């Protein structure tokens, strides 16, 4: 029999109570078979035909769940029980509500996010001085736990080659039994800056090398190493400079072994190919693309880059590794995954279609695009404060200086503009290392940003942490 069964205002350890349905006095939750918080059913998509046995489940998502319970109203008088019944109806009929549950011996509560429900059976014949009300409440598939602030004031550098958290960070110790949307506070990006944030939890992400300095690559036509201000890699400030002196066509300028990994199965996956580039002067237009060349050649889309004299990040599109062929998730029925993939070199091609400037390529960064990738644009500068990626609400916004996201002052400040985004805000996955990758356009390579990450653990029924 649960010790805690009540509607509350917020998912905290000690929330304000709207209705306690097991107060040990006039409300008592019945512990019989009518109590049911079983996990929700799955909706499935199955690919099947007469051409093959069985079928393939290609998607399965949890449906809404039905929580069933019976509460006994024990007010001494019928008028009192009438009042109890109206109190219960009031909570059940709210469009949304929060139902807190904690078993007697459990240390951790969960909160079911419920919807308006009209289905209950009212039985006042069973006993003369109490009534039983059997309820069926529609709820979201997952219960949530108390908010967990898992990353606090982490300093992230914008240089993938330096710092403790070089344009990436690892998040471990995620609670819950299902992935949960993250609530991310990111330092002020600056006006018109774009944050690209991605997550990978599979394929041993910590073993992956996903970026390479351009100057360390095999240099192609008209490409040399040069010192260019604000380049990644520390004091050397080196970049690969393409002069286009003898060939302005779309030919290979860089060849690099990317991605690579200390444990080679980690290379498998899908990536957006980002290149940090600038030009020696304006009034020049370049086109760029990636190429993976071998017995077969695969190209990315041709992307136009209009010259600017400060670095920006050019998105060269999606690359899948390994290329060209389909690879299995396991070798036959063995359940053994491939231990590695023979990789082909990644080449960066560039052309100069107009103008006379040289192209500086600082580095090439493969940002994983397997699970969640989001690009957030801070449309306007804000004096201070921070940006919030509110995963639970699927929105992004700014908050003013002096504000705390969960404190008393919570001033939304979009600086006269808004914070649009494209893609998916990360879902924190329990039980594994969540590696996040983050790059900000427009900022200096030495720039740092402070990151805080919170989330509400998702549980199917009960919590263990």
């Amino acid at each position, binding site marked *: 029999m649960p010790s805690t069964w009540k509607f509350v205002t917020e998912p905290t350890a000690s929330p304000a109570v709207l209705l306690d349905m097991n107060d040990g006095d006039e409300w008592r939750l019945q512990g019989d078979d009518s109590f049911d918080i079983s996990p929700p059913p799955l909706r499935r*998509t199955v*690919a099947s*035909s007469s051409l093959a046995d069985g079928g393939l489940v290609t998607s399965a998502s949890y449906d809404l769940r039905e929580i069933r319970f019976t509460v006994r109203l024990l007010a001494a008088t019928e008028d009192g029980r009438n009042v109890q019944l109206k109190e219960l109806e009031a909570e059940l009929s709210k469009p949304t509500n929060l139902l807190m549950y904690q078993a007697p011996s459990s240390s951790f509560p969960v909160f079911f996010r419920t919807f308006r429900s009209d289905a209950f059976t009212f039985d006042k014949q069973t006993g003369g001085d109490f009534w039983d009300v059997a309820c069926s409440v529609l709820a979201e598939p997952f219960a949530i736990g108390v908010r967990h602030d898992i990353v606090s004031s982490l300093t992230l550098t914008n240089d993938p080659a330096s710092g403790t958290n070089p344009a990436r960070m690892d998040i471990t110790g995620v609670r819950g039994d299902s992935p949960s949307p993250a609530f991310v506070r990111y330092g002020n990006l600056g006006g018109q800056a774009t944050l690209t944030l991605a997550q990978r939890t599979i394929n041993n992400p910590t073993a992956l090398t996903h970026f390479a300095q351009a100057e360390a690559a095999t240099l192609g036509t008209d490409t040399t190493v040069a010192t260019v201000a604000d380049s990644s890699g520390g004091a050397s400030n080196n970049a690969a400079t393409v002069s286009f002196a003898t*060939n302005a066509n779309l030919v290979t300028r860089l060849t690099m072994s990317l991605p690579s990994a200390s444990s080679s199965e980690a290379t498998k996956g899908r990536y*957006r190919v980002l290149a940090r580039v600038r030009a020696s002067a304006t009034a020049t237009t370049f086109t760029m693309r990636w190429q993976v060349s071998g017995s077969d050649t*695969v*190209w990315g889309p041709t992307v136009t880059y209009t010259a600017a004299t400060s670095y920006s990040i050019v*998105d060269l599109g999606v690359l899948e590794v390994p290329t060209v062929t389909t690879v299995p998730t396991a070798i036959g029925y063995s359940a053994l995954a491939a231990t590695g993939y023979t990789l082909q070199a990644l080449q960066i091609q560039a052309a100069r279609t107009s103008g006379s400037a040289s192209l500086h390529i600082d580095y090439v960064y493969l940002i994983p695009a397997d699970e969640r990738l989001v690009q957030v644009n801070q449309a306007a500068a804000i004096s201070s404060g921070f940006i919030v990626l509110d995963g639970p609400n699927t929105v992004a916004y700014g908050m003013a200086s002096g504000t705390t996201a969960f404190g008393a002052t919570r001033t939304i400040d*979009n600086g006269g503009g808004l914070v649009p985004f494209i893609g*998916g805000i990360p879902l924190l996955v329990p039980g594994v290392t969540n590696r996040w990758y983050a790059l900000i356009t427009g900022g200096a390579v030495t720039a740092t940003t402070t990151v805080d990450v919170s989330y509400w653990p998702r549980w199917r029924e009960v919590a263990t942490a």
Partner: protein
Amino acid sequence: MSLPVPLGVRIYNYGRLGLDRWITPWVSDLSFRSVIPGGFASATIKMARPRMMQTPEVITGTATASGDSATPDYLVCSDADAADISVGDRVWIYDASLNIRFGGARFRVTGKVSAFGFTNVSFTPNASGVTNTGDVMRAATPGHFSYADPVVFDELTNLFNRVQIVDLRTGEIVWEGRVEDPQRDSGDDTWTLGCLGAMIVASDIQRPMWYVDGDVSNWSTYESDGLFTFTTDQENNWIRVQMAYEELDGGPVPPFNDYGGSSPLRWGHCEETDTYIGRFDITYFGFQFSSYTGVPGTMPTNRVNTSVADGNWANRVFGIDLTNWNTSPSTRKANAINGATSFTGTARQWIFCGLDATGGTTGYVPWIGRQFFMIEDPRIQVLRMDVTSTMLTAAADYPNDFVTVPQIVRDVVGRFLVGGWNSQFPASPVPFRGQVRTTDIHVDASSTAEIKHLTYYDGATAATILGDMMNAQPDAYWAIWESNFRATDGVNGQLDHGFRFEWATWPGGWGYQIGSADGLSEQPTGDGIYNYVFHKYQIDSQWHHWRRATQWWATQSGESPTLEDGSVTRMLTVINENVIGDTAAFNKAVALGPLYSKRRNAGTVTVKRPIHFHDSGVTSNGGASRTLDPWQIRPGKLARITDVPVAARMNEFVHPIDAFAADTFTRSASSAWDDPDIGPTWVTSGGSASDHSVTGSRGRQAQTSVNILREALLPLTLVDGDLYVTVSTSATATGAGHVIRAIGRYADSSNYLFAQVHFTTTQTVELSVRKIVAGSVTTLASQTPVSGLTHGAGTQFRVRFGWTGSIVRAKIWLASGTEPASWTVSTTDTTFTGPGQVAFRSRLESGNTNTLPVNVEYDNFQVTGVTDNPGSALDGVAYRVVATEYRASDNSCTLELDQVTTWRTETQIADSAAKKSTLVVKG
């Protein structure tokens, strides 16, 4: 285990990029469709009424912005509504001056100055001191019941007028369009958003267009005082102007001295369509004089100073000798758009045809009814635009008396799709909705079709014209995708928008692999169906002789076996009743066969799982090799059914192309050939390093010594291949010949297959296919010489070399000519069947006495082929995917497949060329 489909739905505002709203939690179902031609087509999104959303409330009031720091910006609302606004609320303002109802500045209220005024609404007015009046909208509190008024959602869709369906894993836009038709269903309190995709912008503008007018019926005839009569022959496309008077004497009189006023013929449709003439070409016949004898008549004395056709007065064509014009035509061409004589004024919207003998004309006495002049096959081109919406005004932009498909496509993009479709919003951000960014445009330029008449007097849309262009270039399609389909340019991050336009050709290789898990529904295949020509004919006194011919399913080597190549026609019957020995009708019937292969019927396949996708990016601006989920599948690719036995090509499987390289050598390189346009870097060897160069237009192997092979190796390993290249040498051979080898299955310098071109010392051209095994050369087949070809210094020959399985074949022709249908040499050999590289080798044969160096040059090279051994016979047929429709309800994508060909109903065709023959097409 939960595996939700990782899609999100975003509604955003095109005019104000900052306004976006993700509505994913409220979506109960969605489906979207893309088609070729077209691109993003339509989508339907069904969503629960957004009670829980932040929906704006409309509050009557006035927003005033002073723009002056001394006077705070403030809002003034009516009494009742003021109470609805609180500190911290976000509000939108209707900006009357910009005519932006909801997209204007956004405010956050941070304080009250009175019961009705609110301060510190950080907002930038369109101009200092301008008062903006109208509705004030307040954002409702999240989770709160918003207005029950059903118009609330209408307001939302007005505020956020664009819809994106986004892959949350990669940030890719899988579908985008605009909210066109939101409908509320009160039954279940849901909204259904009807959305139209990017392709709709191709139908938004309609306007008259005359690209090239080659029809004489569009000329107007003008009679001045009844001087002339006119005869028009539309079939042969000429107009004759004749004298209506018996005698005309005593010039200068009209029409001889008054060009504009008395010109009998004129063309002026540019004025009607608000365009200008870019070029005109007119074949012109002068006086009918010498052909008529015994009749008095005198040529104009100033006939050599006579103009005959002008776009404007300043650009008359002078110096014409009319005496040569009566029997032989002379073609007038004017391209007067350069410099000061540019066709930019209204006068450049007209062309007049007549005669003008400036300086006086005397003594001309024609006869009534005699020809004054005649024009034939006039072609007037209007000024076109480039994709940038820039008017093309250089003579070089109009090099021919016809227009081409890419020229028109680029004009369509510039004229209809770039700029101006919706300029409701200020100059920033750009592009406006509906625009195609010039950086996102891919126009295939391979079409050689010559378009000599293309007019849309009653108006046309981009879709109309592009559809017609597909008829001119049947292997091409058009589509408009959202620009973020595959990448952003990084300049504006994810906010780049507009559309990505493709005029692309259908790929030669498969794009999607589909198998038995995906149900295939199709029409019967063409198994056993082939063109069948049945000829009943007469020999001598007998007849009822019969012969027949078949046209088997025939594809070019290396091409993907789309069923279109099957040329399915059930039967053609030719009956020659009294034409002895005539085979013309029979041959014509055989040639007609492929014309009856275009009947297409749909098949469908429904994919509910990830499939493999390969796009070489050669025929479009794409490029990828990856796994796609159902929602990511797009039309415009070939789908290969990998394990469904499709009988049509069971026994003659041709592996689809999966490799491609090409080089136009439009670069400069010394001591190397560097990177081709497409493909891996050339590796050169033989002779001196400096013998190998790229000249800016050709790849060169300088023969600085005799009997030394110079080699250019392309490390592209192919099993089967189909190679084209243009070759030439800089001198005719003396002493001994010049040899050029196009090589496939190159294992090393002593083992490969090749086609050899031999330019002999007698200037004949010899072609052979050969193999070299362990350094020993064997001729497999040869043609010595190839008839009709003569070698000359710099003469370019086009060579095609194909190797498929055991088949080895080659052909050669003058590069300026057309490719012959048949192979010059063809044979089989099984020595080399494995993969090998592609190369060129050349040398001067031993004994050659040419002055050195002799330059062997290559141009317009391309090779297609397959990189591995063909798969099993069950490896399937490739179909064109012409439409895809994704449904979230079962996470499936239905692919509509084309090229499932069936046979025709019986058709009878009159064959005018085959006398007394009847051509019957059955099937």
